[in-house]
Structure formats: structure tokens, C-alpha cells
């Protein structure tokens, strides 16, 4: 169990600021998701958090000490490679010598589930299977802080769903801190405790997933009816399809409000986290333009 503290981190590369004044405490046994516009800045942040790159300014502490290379952090980037002729079994043995908490049995179990043979050679694995293997390796290290960058990017939907189920169950058994950079938050929202919205290397806001699920609602119905009802309500997103209007409101609806909307045949549904993020980013863009 470890705590990762970032204090005013800056990363400047070729006179360009990639990370700007990033401060955040990653607490033990919590799962964090990084999300935002895809510009590669999140990857640089992951490199900083895993000590693969040094910040230009600011400090990162792991359990109260300035971060250094150790087996408490595991970050296997998607482009992690092994000598092409190595078999999956040999890769597991290697990982065991790098990470003391390595769980060989779990790694075998997962590789069997995902149809990766122990004797399969690394260069024979398809792109999808390589990304699954990297995901399996990350989980089986049981490092106190496990960082995943767009996990199983090249795998299919079913494999991703299964992998995240495994991740959830494994996290229940062996609690630890996960930091996941993702472009599809909806598929991992059941795992995540906190969400960090990052844009152009700046931490814009942080959210608790529970709060997001409770405080945002979709209202949809006939455009003219809905428009007359939502006066004074904080709307963050609007989608109009023909005569049908859908608005996303940032407001915890009370019982009488729900009754009022239902009376006018307005549908009230939960908003996918992904959509909320898109609306918030749109609002930010509009504010910037103004």
C-alpha cells in the first residue's frame, strides 16, 4: 500500500510546457482514471509518475520519499517489447525476478482464459494478444501502484470487458492503487473512484464517480415542452434530433421535480460519464472562446 504525492510538477520539453503545475495525491487502494483530450500529455504524466521521466520542476513523493525506481510501481507502456523469441512462460519468469509480489498462478490463469499459450512466442502473438499480455503482466505484478495506459487498446470489446472484470475482482482481493489513462471511461466506471480531467497538461478538475452519477441527469422529450420546463436549471449539454430534445442537467433532482417532469412525459435517465466529460470540455472551449 503506497501513497503517491505530486507537488507542483512541471514538464517542459523543447520549450513547450507539457505538464503545468500538476499537484495531486494518489491515495492507497483507490482507482484513478485520467481522461481528457488526447494529446499525449497524459502519457508524459504517467512517465513522470512511474519515474520513467523526471519533472523539470516540482517533486513526486512515494510514501514520503522522493520517487526512485522500485518494485512498488509498475507501469508497462503499450509499446513494451520483449526479445522476439521469448515464450510467454519465460516472460512470466522474468517478471517474477523484477517484481517480488509477482503472482505467477494468476498470470497463467489469465493467459489461459485469453487463449495465450504458455509456449507462444512473443513475436507470434497478434497485436490484440500482445496488449492483453501487457495487461496481464501489469495485474500479476501486484505492485502497490499499478499504472495502465489505455489498457487492451488493441483487444476486442468482449476481451476488454472480461479483463476489466478480472481487474475488479483482483483489486477486491489484493487492494492497491490503480492509475488508468483511458479514452473510454464508461467501460471502467465501475472500477474508478476518482476521475481526473486533464487538458493540455493542466489538471482541470477532479470528480468522484459516485457524485457524477448522482448529480447529472438526462432529460429528454418534445422540444417545445422541455424548453418550457428547464428554465433556471443548469444545463451543460444539449442534443436536438428533429422534434426530440435531450438536455444534460447538472442538478440532483428532487422527488417533486421528478414528478413534474414525468407529468409532462419527460424521460429522466442517467448520463454516461463519457458524455458528461464531453459536455464539460465543450463548455470549457466555449468559455475560452468568450
Amino acid at each position, binding site marked *: 500500500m503506497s501513497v503517491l504525492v505530486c507537488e507542483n510538477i512541471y514538464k517542459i520539453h523543447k520549450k513547450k510546457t507539457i505538464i503545468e503545475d500538476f499537484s495531486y495525491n494518489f491515495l492507497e487502494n483507490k482507482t484513478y482514471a485520467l481522461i481528457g483530450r488526447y494529446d499525449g500529455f497524459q502519457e508524459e504524466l504517467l512517465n513522470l509518475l512511474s519515474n*520513467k521521466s523526471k519533472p523539470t520542476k516540482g517533486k513526486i513523493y512515494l510514501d514520503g520519499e522522493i520517487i526512485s525506481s522500485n518494485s512498488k510501481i509498475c507501469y508497462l507502456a503499450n509499446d513494451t517489447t520483449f526479445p522476439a*523469441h*521469448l515464450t510467454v512462460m519465460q516472460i512470466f519468469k522474468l517478471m517474477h525476478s523484477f517484481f517480488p509480489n509477482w503472482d505467477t498462478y494468476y498470470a497463467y490463469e489469465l493467459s489461459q482464459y485469453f487463449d495465450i499459450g504458455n509456449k507462444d512466442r512473443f513475436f507470434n502473438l497478434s497485436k490484440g494478444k500482445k496488449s492483453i499480455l501487457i495487461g496481464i503482466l501489469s495485474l500479476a505484478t501486484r505492485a502497490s501502484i499499478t499504472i495502465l495506459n489505455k489498457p487492451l487498446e488493441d483487444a476486442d470489446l468482449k476481451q476488454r470487458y472480461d479483463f476489466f472484470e478480472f481487474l475488479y475482482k483482483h483489486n477486491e482481493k489484493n487492494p492497491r492503487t490503480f492509475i488508468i489513462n483511458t479514452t473510454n471511461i464508461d467501460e471502467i466506471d465501475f472500477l474508478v473512484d476518482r476521475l481526473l480531467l486533464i487538458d493540455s497538461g493542466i489538471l482541470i478538475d477532479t470528480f468522484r464517480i459516485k457524485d457524477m452519477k448522482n448529480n447529472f441527469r438526462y432529460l429528454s422529450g418534445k422540444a417545445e415542452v422541455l424548453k418550457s420546463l428547464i428554465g433556471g436549471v443548469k444545463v451543460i449539454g444539449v442534443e436536438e434530433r428533429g422534434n426530440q430534445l435531450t438536455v444534460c442537467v447538472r442538478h440532483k433532482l428532487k422527488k417533486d421535480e421528478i414528478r413534474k417532469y414525468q407529468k409532462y412525459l419527460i424521460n429522466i435517465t442517467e448520463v454516461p460519464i463519457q458524455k458528461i466529460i464531453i459536455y464539460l470540455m465543450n463548455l470549457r472551449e466555449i468559455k475560452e472562446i468568450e
Partner: protein
Amino acid sequence: MKCFKLLKLYFYGFIYFLVALIFTSLLLFGLSFTEINSSDLFLAFSVFSFLFMFYAGVYAASTIKTTYLKIKTNKNPIFLANILFALILTILITVLLFSFNYFNALSINTYTYIVFAVLLFGLYKLGNFIILFLKNTSYLRLLTLIIFIIAAIFYKETITNLKTIFNYLLNLENILQFNLRILLIASLLLIINYLKY
């Protein structure tokens, strides 16, 4: 101690290299019982070992180092493991050369083994150096192919030149001075490699 654990990565990574080394040694050892001149076989084995060490250095700095740094971030263990592995390979090849000469009763000065060992280590470090500074290995393959083609076309001249070089190495008068020079270059490469690793 971490660097000893890392030797496992080197062992797995170099498994085919090691198989090739053992296979070639056995082949040359077997050929020495035929009518082929033993000193020619010694020359062939030496050329093979020098090339082997150079490419082992290239492979270690490109593939093994990349794999390690994708998993861990501390460069010290991989650097130490790299030196340790280079020394193991150097000793192994020198012992093979020694046993080859022992069984074929070639009159080779004991100091020559030291020259060979130092050269082997130096070539390994040169391989490391080239990759660390030029990074791209694709041109190396092409270059090797061109060198082999030229050597094959002018095979008579190549063999004569190689023999001259080996005769020079075998009959070195100032061995100490020669070794010191090679060691100095290897140490210099080692320091530069450390900074770049």
C-alpha cells in the same frame, strides 16, 4: 544483487546466440580432426568470435536494454549486468579458444589469450557504443551484408589479410602496450556508455 537477477534476462535474450556459439565451437572442434589445417580453423573461430561479440554488444544495447527500461527505470543494474555478461562471454570464448588450441596442440603464446580476451570485450563495448549513439540498427544489417558480399567476392585477399592480422596478433612483441591501448579504448566506451545508458 539486482544485476545478478538481470542475468536471467540476458540468458533468455541470448539463448540463440549461445546455442550458435556452442554449435560453431563443436563444428570447428569436429573439423579439426579432419584434414583441414588447424591453424585455419583457429582463424575461422577467431573471426567468428569477434563478429559474435560485436553483434552481442549490438543486441544487448538495443533489445535487452530496451526491454528492461520498459519495465524498470533504474539504469545501474542493467549497466552492471551488461558488463558482467560481457565478461562471462569473454571468459567463455577465451576458454573455448584455449581448449581448441590445447587439443590441436597449436603453438600459441599464453599472453595471446589475454590479447583475445581484451579484444573480445572491446568489441562487445564497441557494439554497445554504436547502438547507443546511432540507435538505428537497420543500416547495420545492410552494412554487414555488403561487407560479407565484398569479402566473398575477394575471398582470397580477405583470407590473406585476415591471416596477416592474426599473425600480427599472435606474434605481438609489445603485448602489454597493445592490451593497454585496447583496454583504454574499451574503458572510454564504457564510460560513454554509462552516461548514455
